């Protein structure tokens, strides 16, 4: 799976704060779309009102859950990126039209979905690298068309399932049952239980 924005995002110091700026979010999202679909047979259009609605909804979720960052910071970064992905799916600001179907990659199977995932994954990986000097490997199955087909069907039923999907790609334990409840994430529960028993 292609992550065209990682190099650009890495050039941004303190990305975890910058991403909370609406102007930066809009600009970097559009840049990611541009890099994901280089000029040619693919045409894309981003609806600004929908993009802003995604950001505002994500911001509310972020503020409501940010206290959990003190329990497990790394897990909270993954959860926040997953929440952003869920809101992008919910508001669906991007529309892509393509004249050719050259390969069976995620970009051609589901262009909008792959653009949302590559953006949020890029943000999460860059913040993790900046905060923890971690460089996560993207698993091989991220390129499997069957995974993308299944993901598309699931997320159309419930956009919040984007959160555990992104957890899987980031190597974090997913919570498929209550994906949007940050308190019930495996990492948070494990640390809370440990803190109570000591």
């Amino acid at each position, binding site marked *: 799976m292609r992550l065209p924005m990682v190099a650009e995002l890495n050039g941004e110091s303190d990305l975890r704060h910058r991403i909370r700026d*609406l102007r930066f979010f809009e600009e970097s999202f559009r840049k990611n779309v541009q890099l994901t679909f280089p000029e040619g047979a693919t045409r894309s259009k981003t609806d600004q009102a929908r993009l802003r609605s995604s*950001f505002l909804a994500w*911001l509310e979720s972020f503020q409501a859950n940010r206290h959990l960052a003190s329990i497990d910071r790394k897990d909270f970064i993954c959860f926040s990126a997953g929440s952003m992905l869920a809101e992008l799916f919910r508001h669906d600001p991007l529309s892509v039209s393509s004249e050719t179907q050259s390969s069976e990659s995620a970009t051609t199977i589901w262009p909008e979905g792959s653009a949302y995932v590559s953006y949020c994954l890029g943000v999460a990986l860059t913040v993790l690298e900046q905060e923890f000097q971690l460089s996560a490997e993207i698993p091989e199955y991220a390129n499997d068309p069957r995974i993308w087909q299944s993901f598309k069907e699931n997320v159309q039923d419930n956009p919040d399932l984007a959160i555990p999907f992104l957890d899987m790609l980031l190597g974090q334990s997913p919570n498929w049952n209550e994906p949007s409840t940050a308190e019930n994430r495996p990492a948070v529960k494990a640390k809370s239980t440990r803190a109570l028993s000591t």
Partner: protein
Amino acid sequence: MPKQQRFPLPPTVDDLSAAPLVVKDALRGIRLKLRNFVPNSDEFGQIGQSRLPLSPLAIATALFNETRKISLLGEDIARDVLFRHRDEARLTAFARSGFGSNVSPMPEHQRHDFVSSRYAALKILTRQLGANELLILEQPIDMTYLTLLGRISGNSSGFPAQNAINFDRIASSIVALEKSGALSSPKLETQVPRLGQLIFAALGLAETILALSTNHSVESTLAALNLAADVIVLRKPSIAAIFEGFDPEAQLSAEYRLLAPPLTEA
């Protein structure tokens, strides 16, 4: 039968300084009425036909419209140049003349800036939100300023650290302005939130953005007003819940705390 009041008057002798605002507001009301007046054939007659008598309002409207047509081009050019400069000058005072910054007691000279800058900002927001039928009145803004000044001067405690932004005061001033009648609608609005509530919520958000920003140029002020209006429209359900809710001041303050920092230019 009670005597009918033709236009709002200053409520007390102490507020006679507000008298010019009353006159300006009354003239605005007449201008809006003339602009929106659509004569029916019974009252106005057919153009070119002599179906007299015409009512005084119909004659005034006809004169107004004809004069307007003749001088339209020249007036528009003059208006664009003069009013833009005047409004830009007023807007530069927008951020610093509010109740969000730690100035205690509020100096009296800020009163004029508060009224004129909010009038100019409301003009921009009503245009952006397509609410040209709303009448903006300066006198209620002035009255709100005096009320808030009295409230804040008597309770200067509880202000955050020096140079910090007081979200609560911005929210209080917006709720008070919304109740003041500074935006007057010719028709009864039934939808929730009302257009006026959206406009005032956007006004407060723009003020908060500018209070957090170090850039107070006219361009930044206009950008803040535009962005605030766009975002408030996207937050319609929240704004409705705030104004219809139990404690609008606290809720609006929380909304500004959530929204303003991510909208402020780094």
